């Protein structure tokens, strides 16, 4: 149940967080799920299960981030995840390009800004939940989000 219900979301988050590597996202998600399973006895509900699981993903990804040199951005990361539209090929191409640009812009963000933005805008978490997932304060989350949104909006301006 843990794997089926929360795994896809954790993997999606890991994919965008690590930015360029399918293999890294898989490793991060696997380690987080194994760690969650081993630690379920000590979890017992101080935050929502989902928040706790995303926190584990974040920690694993941060460990990887610290110990790895930067890798080139894989331009196809997000676009590869978009299913082709059957009735509008042009719109599909536009969507792929747009998501490619978003991933590139995300990869330029500092680590915590990227994580906070993904958890808020894509995963729909509250500020409290994001603070728990990132092991920081709500005030810090607000700051990361504010700066992340401003930078992303600037980067995406070229699409107007």
């Amino acid at each position, binding site marked *: 149940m843990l*794997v*089926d219900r929360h*795994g*896809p*979301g954790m*993997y*999606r988050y890991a*994919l965008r967080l690590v930015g360029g590597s*399918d293999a890294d996202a*898989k490793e991060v*998600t*696997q380690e987080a*799920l*194994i760690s969650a*399973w*081993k630690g379920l*006895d*000590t979890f*017992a*509900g*101080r*935050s*929502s299960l989902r928040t706790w699981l995303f926190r584990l993903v974040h920690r694993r990804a941060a460990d990887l981030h610290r110990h790895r040199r930067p890798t080139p951005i894989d331009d196809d990361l*997000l676009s*590869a*995840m*978009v*299913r082709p539209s059957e009735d509008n090929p042009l719109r599909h191409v*536009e*969507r792929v*390009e*747009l*998501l490619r*640009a*978003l991933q590139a812009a995300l990869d330029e963000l500092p680590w915590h800004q990227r994580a906070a933005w993904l958890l808020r*805008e*894509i995963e729909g978490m509250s500020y*409290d*939940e994001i603070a*728990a997932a990132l092991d920081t304060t709500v005030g810090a989350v607000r700051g990361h989000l504010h700066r992340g949104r401003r930078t*992303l*909006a600037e980067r*995406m*301006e070229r*699409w*107007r």
Partner: protein
Amino acid sequence: MALEHLDDDPLGLAVDAVRQEAAEGAPEGWSEVAASVRGRLRSVLDPAVPILVHDARGRLDHDAEGSRTWVTDRVVKAALRRALQPSATHAPSALRLVVDEDRLRGVELDLVAAYGVELRPLADAVRAVVLEELRDLLGPDPAFGPADVAITFVDVVPGDPRLV
């Protein structure tokens, strides 16, 4: 690549596209990750601990033939976690079961309480919830009572401790 309909808010449109993709199902490659995780979980799983169930009269043998029923500790822990979630006055931090010779001998529960809540009445209320849940799952054990549920408050926090 100029896209006329992106004039208004390209970032907003990109976010919509990502959310739509998320709503469409698991990302590509997920099935491979899931299979790998399941394989690794099978190799790291601790064996479940069986706990004997008492019948309505508090006996372990449910009939003249000596039929017995067991419930694993995983089921008991999951049920207790669910039972301890509903209130904003407290949240479980850790939960341990003491099992000896297939009998539940004790529950050790670490709690985080909300600031301003009276701890002693809260402990009594939580203990009652635990005992009721155990009785539902394992039947009435005449040797198991309130003194076998040890509650330790490990932290007191402002606001809802479930969200901390």
